[in-house]
């Protein structure tokens, strides 16, 4: 009987080969399959970004308005408090970089809500991979795109009087990447819960501007009234804008007094927060929010 079975199987296989069926066996779930999933989700984000030139261009308009129009317009007023030879545009430049990343990262996260609306999210959620790998792929994809947008603004450093120093450029790219990751994770965490596109956009719009204005992107963090001072310390964006501005000004040969006025350390009750701790806080927040997003998506219906 067993022989008959074997013969039947052999015949079936032969027939299948004759019909030209390509045998595919799906492997067991493993770290490797999960990594492949992370990579394809990430690549999809890039393909879509590449296709959507219009979005790339339109999302550069706002940062350019801030840098060139607001920066130039306020110069006459602000120049008085700037040290000689330092442009006001240089001062707001790190903030504008952060802003570019902020808008793009949140918009990338919105694509999850979009995917849900158009059904593609389901294609991802029914796959035999851990949902963590999909969330991680999304976060990395959004982070990459937002950083690429930031790099376009970074290419305009000369317009803001920022030198094209390779170390400075790399530092800024790294800091943007970190910021982009954390913001995408934040967006994905929200998108995991908010299922309607309108609601998601309304909520993020409500959060984006306060995040930007409270980060010290447009003003130095010392000498603020207590309420504003507290709010700036709560804003996660502060902990990236500060180090970015520090990086820019430390490449401009400023005297310590000017440096202290333009790029003061972020302080907690008078204690200066080291740059590495500052960046570490942002990274930890990003990872925590990604964790929440993973937990939300992993819950079965």
């Amino acid at each position, binding site marked *: 009987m067993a022989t008959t079975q074997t013969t039947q199987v052999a015949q079936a296989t032969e027939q299948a080969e004759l019909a030209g069926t390509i045998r*595919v066996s799906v*492997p*067991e779930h493993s770290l490797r399959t999960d990594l492949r999933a992370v990579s*394809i989700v990430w690549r*999809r984000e890039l393909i879509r970004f590449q296709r959507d030139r219009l979005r790339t261009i339109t999302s550069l308009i706002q940062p350019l308005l801030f840098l060139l129009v607001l920066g130039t317009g306020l110069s006459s007023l602000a120049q008085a408090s700037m040290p000689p030879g330092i442009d006001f545009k240089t001062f707001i430049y790190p903030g504008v970089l952060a802003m570019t990343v902020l808008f793009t990262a949140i918009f990338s996260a919105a694509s999850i809500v979009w995917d849900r609306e*158009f059904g593609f999210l389901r*294609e991802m959620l029914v*796959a*035999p991979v851990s949902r963590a790998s999909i969330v991680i792929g999304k976060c990395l994809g959004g982070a990459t795109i937002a950083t690429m947008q930031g790099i376009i603004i970074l290419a305009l450093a000369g317009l803001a009087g920022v030198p094209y120093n390779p170390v400075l450029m790399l530092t800024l790219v790294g800091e943007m990447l970190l910021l982009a990751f954390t913001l995408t994770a934040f967006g994905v965490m929200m998108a995991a819960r908010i299922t309607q596109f309108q609601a998601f956009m309304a909520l993020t719009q409500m959060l984006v501007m306060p995040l930007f204005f409270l980060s010290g992107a447009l003003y130095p963090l010392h000498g603020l009234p207590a309420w504003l001072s507290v709010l700036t310390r709560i804003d996660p964006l502060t902990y990236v804008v500060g180090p970015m501005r520090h990086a820019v000004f430390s490449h401009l040969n400023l005297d310590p007094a000017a440096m202290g006025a333009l790029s003061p350390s972020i302080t907690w009750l008078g204690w200066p927060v080291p740059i590495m701790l500052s960046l570490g806080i942002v990274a930890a927040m990003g990872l925590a929010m990604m964790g929440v997003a993973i937990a939300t998506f992993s819950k079965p*219906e």
Partner: protein
Amino acid sequence: MAGQGSGGQVAQQAADGHRAPAIEVAGLTKNYGDIEAVRGIDFEVPVGETFGFLGPNGAGKSTTIKMLCTLARPTSGSARVAGHEVTTARDAVRRNIGLVFQDTTLDNYLTGAQNLRFHAALYGVPAAAVEPRMRQVLEMVGLWERRDSVVMSYSGGMKRRLEIARGLLHAPHVLFLDEPTVGLDPQTRASIWEYINELKSREDITIFLTTHYMDEAEHCDRIAIIDHGKIVAIDTPEALKASVGKDRVQIQTADDQAAIAELGRVFGIEAGMHEGAVTFSVASGEQFVPRLFAGLSVPIRSVSVSRPTLDDVFMSYTGTTIRDAEASGTDQMRQMAAAFRGRR
């Protein structure tokens, strides 16, 4: 039991020489809050069968599919797909099934080929097999030439075909088709069925589909009629129609009155004149016709046998037509949809 794990399953198959069912469902229920979407269903689908769930919208078809695909957790009961329990071996089930949903789940901004490559990577299709297998499934649905076009430019029928190709890409053992032709024009529906029938002949696959079109249910080897979350009948389309009662046979003869008398005498059948023909009902008309020719001395000029349709079947089991059931079920469906959205 020894045959719990997948290894045991294979061993068991080899030992007793027949394969375990592709789908086994026992006492499956699903509640969304107070609404009982599925109220305890049992059925088995043997390997290689095309099995259809027929019922109006809101009858529990999609909920059942969701549970079988591990997308929804059953409230109680058990379901095994390709030998794996849906609640405890989620990934194993998912590796072995292909899904085509009612609503499209394609990325409109990617090309057809990119959508498939994405799927291949998520399902871990070995890199060397991706391109040849992709070509095979795309050729099967007639989209190989359009593979590099963005999905946004596809017609509704093309999108559905691409989804079927994608569902097959990782060579699943069971393919789930949730209302595969809903929203398509009749011509496109017919072509989708051509592809599905071709697929049955080419791949060693079990197909589970839901539909509320009677004519589509005819394509299935077996059908379960589901209404208000319960299976009310389950059998081959032929047997279901036979169970409704009898086929109607109409004959034109040289001498109608003699024929009627002889039918009563020889076969014990009560016949009458309807629409100018001798008319009577028998259990299976096709099989009766040869006996009729052999047993009736009156010359027969023509014979017509008409069978009950699945509409009659649905009517006899649920007491309503599928269209009426749909109209009254719409409110319930809306409630369910709302409950579902609230969850996710």
